[in-house]
Structure formats: C-alpha cells, structure tokens
C-alpha cells in the first residue's frame, strides 16, 4: 500500500541519495538537500502534516546555516544530519498513516467481539447525545450543561476506543474532546464553524461504528476499517489554535445568528420547543448571562440503567403472561368460584391486582420513549433544510411517550420518508412563502400522544398542502384508479399511498422516486398500525400514524366462526353491524358485495375463507365487520362477536410458516389457544402458491 503520494516519495528518494553523497558532494549536495527539504516542507504544509512540516523546517534551517559556512560537512555533522533526517521520515510516514486511518480489529476471543459490539452500541447512544446536544448549543452556545454533556460523550468515546486499542477513533475523539474542553473553559466560542466540526466529527465516528459493526458481523474479521479522519483532526486543531480556516467566524459575543446572516443565506433553526414553552425570543436570551436551567429536553441521564438481554426480558414477559393465565384459571375455577368465603374473595382480588400490576410492569420494560427517533428527525430536518436553502423549524411534542422498543426503532424509517417529503415538496422556499403571506420560516411539527389505547404520531407541516385535483390527475395518469373512480377528498388523498404514485415534479435525490408513501404505509402496517393523511391546499398537510403500544400485545376482537374462535386486531376494524338481506348483493364472478351507506364493499366469509364447514349459510344471520385489509375496506362475515380483549401475541413457529392467514396465536383466559387473523392476508385472493407473509412475533 502506497502510504505517501508520488511526489513525496520521489523527494524522499532524492534526499536519501543526497545524504549518501553529502560528504563528497560538498556544497552542491547541501544545496540540493535544502531545495528538496523546501519542497517537502511545502507538501507537508499543503497536506497539513504538522510534525513533518516542523521537522523539515528545522532541518532545512540547520542546513542553510551549515551551507552558509561554505565548508563540507565533517563526520559528526553528517551523523547529526542523519539523526535529524530520520524523525522527519518517520513523521511523514506516521502522519500518512493517520491520513489513511485504517485499522484492523484485533479479535482474540469471543469476549473481544462482545466488547466491540458493546462499544458500538454505547457509541451510537453517545453520538445521538452529541447530536442532540449540538442542536441545543446551536440555539444557546453557552449552555453549560449541554457543553459538559457533549464533552463527556466524547470523553467516554475516547476511553472506550483507547481501551479497545482503536487508535484512529481515540485520536479523533480526543481532538473533539479538546475542542469541547476549550469551549468549556470559555477559550473557544461555539459558532457555526465549531458546530459543523462537532457534527462532522460525530458523523465520522458513526462511520467507524458502522464499519466495526459491519466487520464483526462479516466473515472476514480482519478487513481494515478505513475512515479518513486526518483532515478533520487538522481542522479541529487549527480551530483550537484560534484559526478556524476559511469559514467565517461570527463575533464572539454574538448570540443572534439571524441578524448577522445575509438575507440570501439559509438560516436553520431547529429549536426543540416544549409543548407549553414558546420559542425563546432573542432579547430574553441576552438578558440571561447565566446558563439557563435546562429549557429544552436534554438527553436522559443514563446512570440508572441496567442493560438486559432482550431474550431474558422476553422470557420474563412470557412467564408473567403465564402467571396471569394461571391466576385466572384459579380464580374462575368452579370450586374456588363456589366458595362463599369473603376472606377468600378478598385474597383473590388482591392476587388479581398484583398479577395485573406485574403484567403492566413487565410490559413497560419493553417500552422506551419515542425521543430517540425524534432526535434523529431533528438532525435530518436541519441537514435537509440546509441543503435546500429552506428555513424550517421543527417542533417536537410528547417525546416522552413510550412505545415498544421494536416499534420505536422501526418507526424511524417511515418518519424519515415523510419528513423528507414534507421538506422536499411541502415547505416552500422562503421567498415563495413570503409571497404567499406566510412567515419565511416553515414549520414542521411532530407530536406523539396516547389515543384510544394506542399511540398517535402526527406530522404536520405548514407548506403548500396536497392538491386533490393533482393527486386525482396523477393517479389517472399512472393508471392507479379507473376513470369511474368517485371518491371523496379523503379517499383521493389516500391515493398517495398507492404503489407507484409520486407527485414530485422533478426527481431529486431526496424523495420523489415514486416509492415513498406506499413504502411508508407498508412499514406502518407491518407494525400493525395505519396511516392517514389530511391536507388543506396552501396551508398544511398532516399525516397521522396510529400505532399499537406494543407488538407483544394487541387489542383484539374475539369472533366466532363455525365452532371456532379467532382474533382480529381491533385497530383494523372500522365498524361492525348486522346486515339485512337488502344490503347484500352478489356480483357475478366477483363474489358478494355489501352496500354500506351507498358504498359497495367486497365481502369475505370467514368460514368460506378458512374452509370451516358449519358456518352460517345465510349472511344475514351473521355479523359483518368492515376491516382495513391492505388499505382497502373489506367486509368480513363472521358468526358472532364474542368479546374485545387484550391478548399477548405468541409466534406460531416454523411449522405454520406457510400459512399466511394467521399472524400469530394467543392464549385465552381458559388456557386454550386462539388464532390471530392477519387482515391484510384475509383480503388477498387465494393464490395457488401461498405467499409467506406471516409476520411472526
């Protein structure tokens, strides 16, 4: 591997040659050496190789001195020259090495692998803390607590990397730590340049984390991980030396960014406003020289956390589920239920209460605040707004809302898609906004809150909205709908979730490849949720995502079909009713339809679908549930409704993998198993080859 570039290599060879002849060569040799060293110095300076620069300068100076004497070198001087030259060569190679910043991870045992994995996980946590902190600093550069937090994050990083012998990471983290330390000591002002440096540092560290993760998961565990850090470290160092490079510095005591920024330059503010807290106004900030008592949510204090293997957690939750079932079997047992003792019934009530509390607690172990996902959005909005010269404020509300860890993680991707859409297509450019009488600064609000036993996540922007007429035209053009499509505004807007739909005028690298919203809907429905869109043209667009609290429990409707019972997720049920004969009609070749308030909805009989014999022959004897099946309404005919209850979802195992109609099973209060139906799969027509579409969990 060529560590040095060609010209440096050539120079080094020249110098080595001259060194060999310097004793006999006399003055001309010294002159040649001086000139070579001068070139080397220039290269070193251009590439920011500090040490080499310094050494070549020293050596050059010393040689000039010798040369001016006009005599040849004696043996002692020659030795000194060689002694001085060696460190220079070393420094050149060493610094070139850092430029490459490659390292291989050294795995001696399984423990090392685990340590590295741990380091990556922790590192990612730290990096999101850093990102979050930086966004706070952008608003309030002097916020001491945040400064300390970011500093500590880099410090922890350095420690971990040092312990694992990951030198390039350690170096970078060390430099970033110094940067933050300088800011802590008030010897450096956090301006935009510094913020960008910190963010770039965080990104580079993240690349390292990704590289390590990729390597420890791959077969070739000795592949070097190379992430360039050299240039960044140089920038950090020069900033520390009070020379921030080509980036303009803002005046030290200036907290007001907007005033100093030229009108055509994009201003990005991403304040993290609390629900009841207005965005802090500028004068107020100036009036408060002391660090404010945390006006914005900080990354949570991690000291009181215990890391637990998720398998252990799942086992615990399973056992608690068992306990609850066993409890209800005892309580409902005829012998126990027949007892008249008041004391017994009191004890049983106590038992039930403890079991219920235990279950709730066990479930909450899997729950994490949605904050981490929202934090990612902050950064995304900042970067996208920056790159598109738009001014956007992101307001997040309800970050403390807790959701199943798996959902929180899986939610990031669809949310990124939607925010990209909002920024790309929704929010107009500042000039355009002002022309429309809006404030130049666009606003995106994301909010999480509890609703109807689930979670509602709302993403609202005050951009140009979605024009139903354009959606309709586009859908026709793309052949998504027939020409006789006659839906209301809401139904028209919902067409944006159809595959192959995109209203983007131009394809950008951000969004608009026409895969956006149907992917979003797919991700949401995999989480057993659903998504809705509302829009006022010229004013706003709101996406509402309804999600269950957890993937482990669903709110289910227990229905009977034949002599069996099944569970249908309540979230996908829109309504249920007892049909009258007049509501039903049979369409030749297309099965039965049910007429619900003028809407013709295709109907599926659960008994027929599942090939259960003893179901009702006459549909009007049963109950029809309108379910949301793959985005479309379908009528599902069942015999009767039994009850609505929360059930713990259990995977059905490999043996049932080929069966697409069930998404899992649940153990009912009587200890027997009931199968959970997958509404999406129910709506699909039976293909000869069943798709493997079971989402087992």
């Amino acid at each position, binding site marked *: 591997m060529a560590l040095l570039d060609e010209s440096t290599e050539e120079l080094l060879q020249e110098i080595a040659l001259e060194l060999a002849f310097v004793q006999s060569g006399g003055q001309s040799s010294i002159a040649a050496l001086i000139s070579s060293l001068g070139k080397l110095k220039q290269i070193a300076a251009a590439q920011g190789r500090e040490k080499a620069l310094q050494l070549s300068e020293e050596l050059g100076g010393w040689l000039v001195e010798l040369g001016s004497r006009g005599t040849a070198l004696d043996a002692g001087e020659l030795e000194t020259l060689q002694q001085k030259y060696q460190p220079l060569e070393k420094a050149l190679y060493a610094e070139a090495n850092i430029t490459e910043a490659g390292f291989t991870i050294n795995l001696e045992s399984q423990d090392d692998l685990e340590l590295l994995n741990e380091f990556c996980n922790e590192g990612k946590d730290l990096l999101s803390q850093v990102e979050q902190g930086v966004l706070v600093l952008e608003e309030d550069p002097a916020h001491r607590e945040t400064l300390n937090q970011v500093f500590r994050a880099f410090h922890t990083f350095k420690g971990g990397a040092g312990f694992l012998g990951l030198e390039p990471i350690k170096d970078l983290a060390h430099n970033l730590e110094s940067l933050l330390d300088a800011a802590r000591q008030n010897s450096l002002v956090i301006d935009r340049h510094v913020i960008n440096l910190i963010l770039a540092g965080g990104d580079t560290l993240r690349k390292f984390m990704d590289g390590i993760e990729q390597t420890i998961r791959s077969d070739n565990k000795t592949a070097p991980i190379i992430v360039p850090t050299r240039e960044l470290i140089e920038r950090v160092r020069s900033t520390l030396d009070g020379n921030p490079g080509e980036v303009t510095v803002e005046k030290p005591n200036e907290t007001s960014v907007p005033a100093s920024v030229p009108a055509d330059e994009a201003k990005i503010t991403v304040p993290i406003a609390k629900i009841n807290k207005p965005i802090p106004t500028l004068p107020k900030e100036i009036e408060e020289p002391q660090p404010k008592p945390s006006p914005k949510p900080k990354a949570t204090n991690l000291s009181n956390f215990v890391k637990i293997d998720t398998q252990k957690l799942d086992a615990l939750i399973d056992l608690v589920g068992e306990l609850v079932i066993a409890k209800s079997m005892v309580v409902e047992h005829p012998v126990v239920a027949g007892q008249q003792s008041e004391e017994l019934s009191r004890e049983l009530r106590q038992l039930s209460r403890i079991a219920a509390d235990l279950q709730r607690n066990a479930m909450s172990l899997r729950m994490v605040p949605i904050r981490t996902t929202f934090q990612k959005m902050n950064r995304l909005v900042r970067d996208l707004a920056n790159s598109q010269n738009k001014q956007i404020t992101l307001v997040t509300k309800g970050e403390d809302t807790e959701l199943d860890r798996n959902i929180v993680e899986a939610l990031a991707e669809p949310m990124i898609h939607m925010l990209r859409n909002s920024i790309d297509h929704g929010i107009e450019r500042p000039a355009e906004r002002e022309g429309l009488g809006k404030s130049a600064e666009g606003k995106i609000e994301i909010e999480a809150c509890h609703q109807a036993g689930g979670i509602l996540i709302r993403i609202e922007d005050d951009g140009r909205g979605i024009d139903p007429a354009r959606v309709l035209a586009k859908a026709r053009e793309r052949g998504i709908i027939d020409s006789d499509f006659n839906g209301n505004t809401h139904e028209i807007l919902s067409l944006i979730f159809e595959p192959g739909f995109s209203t983007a005028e131009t394809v950008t690298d951000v969004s608009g490849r026409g895969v956006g919203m149907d992917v979003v809907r797919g991700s949401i429905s995999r989480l057993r949720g659903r998504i809705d869109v509302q829009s006022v043209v010229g004013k706003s667009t709101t996406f509402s995502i309804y999600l269950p609290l957890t993937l482990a429990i669903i709110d289910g409707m227990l229905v009977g079909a034949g002599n*069996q019972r099944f569970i249908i997720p309540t979230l996908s049920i829109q309504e249920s009713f007892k049909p009258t004969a007049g509501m039903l009609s049979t369409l030749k070749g297309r099965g039965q339809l049910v007429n619900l308030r003028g809407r013709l909805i295709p109907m599926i009989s659960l008994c027929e679908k599942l090939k259960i014999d003893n179901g009702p022959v006459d549909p009007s004897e049963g109950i029809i549930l309108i379910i949301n099946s793959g985005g479309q309404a379908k009528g599902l005919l069942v015999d009767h409704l039994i009850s609505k209850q929360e059930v713990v979802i259990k995977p059905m*195992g*490999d*043996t049932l993998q080929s069966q697409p109609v069930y998404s899992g099973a649940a153990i009912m209060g009587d200890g027997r198993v009931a199968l959970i139906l997958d509404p999406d799969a129910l709506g699909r027509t039976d293909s000869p080859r*069943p798709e493997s579409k079971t*989402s*087992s969990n």
Partner: protein
Amino acid sequence: MMSTSVITKAGEMAIDDIAVYNDLPEAGKYLNFQLGQERYSLAVAEVREIIRLCPITPVPRMPEHFLGVINLRGKIVPVIDLRQRLHLPSSEAKERACIIVVHHHTAASPDQLVGLQVDLVDEVVFIEQSAIEPVPDFCDTVDGKFIQAMAKYKDSVLAILSVAELLKDAGNLQTNTALAPEQDQ
C-alpha cells in the same frame, strides 16, 4: 455424554437429511409407543416430554394430519396426528392417547417443539446396537422414509421413527422448503 451426542445427531439430520438413510441410530434409550397394534419407537433424546391429551385448537387450511395447536405452558406448540402422518386409519379410541412433545431442529430455529399424538405410550427401554437393523426393502414406499431403522426388543419388532423426516414439510401445504421464516427479535 451419550445423550448430547444424540442431540447433535438429530440436529444434523434435520439439516442434512441424507445422513438419515445411511446412518443407523445408535444404541440407547428409546421411548416405545403404539398406534393401534403397531409398535414404534423414538430416541428419548428427541423427546422433551409426554403430556396427556388436551384441548387442541384446530388451524383451518392446514394439511389433514395437522391437528392444530396447543398451549404448552405458554408456548404455542403444533400437534400432528401421527396416525394420519403415517397414513394409518384414524382411531376412535382416545382414552389412553398422549401427545409426545419432541424437539424439532430446523436451520432457521434450532429448537422448536412439536407434539405428536399417539394412541398409547408404553415405556422407555434400552436398545442394544446389535438389535438395530436397517429398514428392509419391503417397507411401504410412501411411509418408508419416516422409519429410520428397525429394532428387535424382547419378542417384538419396533420401528424407530425419524423425527426430522416426520416433521419435514409437515406444516406446509406445498412442499415449499425455500420459505425462510422472518426472524423478529
């Protein structure tokens, strides 16, 4: 020591089923059970437990030999009617019927449990290596693959069944082995 080696062997068989035909099972403890008058055997290392017949929830649209699923202390365990799996006439005599819960090893999930419903469980016996013989040629061609070997025990002959073969594609409507289950965590 011995039991672990048997477990490993069972695991290998599930993945590499060719080995089933070539290798005779090793001497060891076997669980004898009956389907009608016929006597069968399973290596005890493959058996997790034996439970009494309990309410089975049918799973519509599954193959006929698939009786449904049961709740085994919180785990959902599929149950297969061994009579139907072996294409034997079904029996009405259920009073002594049991479910033998066996370990099922697949490449995707190393330890699944599957129940096999049998008419009657006899006893656990030790079978010597010398008593184990390859399956004779005259064995039924369809069901022959389920029988791993024959064993003489006292004055009767036992058919040692292969769990891996019994459960291979047992739950699939089509023989579709390419289905890799999505592993959620």
